[in-house]
């Protein structure tokens, strides 16, 4: 069975055995094959916020790519070798000196998994899903970020099949950084919009 290490199963969830049972039965009945299941496990493992950071860093240095990212997120992701998966749409929204974007899925925790991998536990929490639409500024404050008073906060509730990601503004003082150095500033939290990228030279993991 896929990745099954009995001595490592320390969970007390009854669903661990149930999903293993389901796997075994589906494989035995030929409904799924082991390579298929392995492929899907590998697929998710290959996806992470680093992909989002790459997209943002490239957009910061290449205006044409930025235009593509904002008009056709999937095409931009494909251009950088990411496989953005059908049929959900992938839309990137841009922060400017006038607006700050925040992403949530109040109904279930939709997230651009095909690009960024699994969302953090807090993103899926009842607290985030309830409060981010009603008090986005208070939520961001909890993440250590407060947009200036004159900046409009735009919340995007992913209620249908569009998955959103935030293109933050490039931090100042980064003129000397190369693309890789820029990507390192782009935190997962800034891709969701609860905060902004690290400043150059900052050491906290954000």
């Amino acid at each position, binding site marked *: 069975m896929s990745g099954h290490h009995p001595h490592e199963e320390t969970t007390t969830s009854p669903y661990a*055995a149930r999903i*293993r049972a389901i796997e075994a039965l589906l494989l035995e009945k030929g409904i799924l094959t082991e390579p298929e299941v392995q492929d899907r*496990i590998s697929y*998710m493992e290959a996806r992470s916020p680093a992909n989002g950071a790459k997209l943002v860093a490239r957009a910061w240095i290449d205006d044409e790519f930025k235009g593509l990212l904002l008009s056709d997120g999937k095409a931009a992701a494909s251009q950088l070798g990411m496989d953005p998966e059908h049929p959900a749409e992938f839309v990137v929204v841009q922060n400017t000196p006038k607006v700050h974007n925040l992403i949530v899925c109040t109904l279930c925790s939709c997230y651009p998994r095909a690009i960024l991998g699994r969302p953090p536990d807090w993103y899926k929490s009842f607290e985030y899903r309830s409060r981010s639409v009603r008090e986005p500024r208070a939520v961001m404050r909890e993440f250590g970020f407060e947009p200036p008073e004159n900046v409009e906060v735009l919340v995007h509730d992913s209620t249908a099949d569009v998955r959103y990601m935030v293109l933050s503004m490039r931090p100042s003082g980064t003129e000397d950084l190369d693309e890789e150095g820029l990507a390192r500033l782009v935190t997962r939290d800034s891709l969701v919009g609860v905060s902004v990228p690290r400043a150059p030279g900052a050491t906290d993991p954000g």
Partner: protein
Amino acid sequence: MGGSPAGPIGRDQHEVEDWERLSDAINSALGARGLQSTDEHRRAIESLENYRDLSYYERWAAATERLLVEKGILTDREIDERAAEIERRWGGP
């Protein structure tokens, strides 16, 4: 849910367990095969009576199970029996 009063946002991040990865993978593989859709899976999650008592991936696994039984692909009984067998092998209850 959106707009309901709620407390501070917990920031603990649990380590994703193997069974959770598997839950994800099976859901995805079934979708790729056209055996269940994202919308069906969401609906199945929403219909779970014990939604609030389950963790995120427990809800996923429970919903996948519900759909497989609903569609007659697997039965409750064979899942129960196999799960019990697996737990015995693990030395659990």
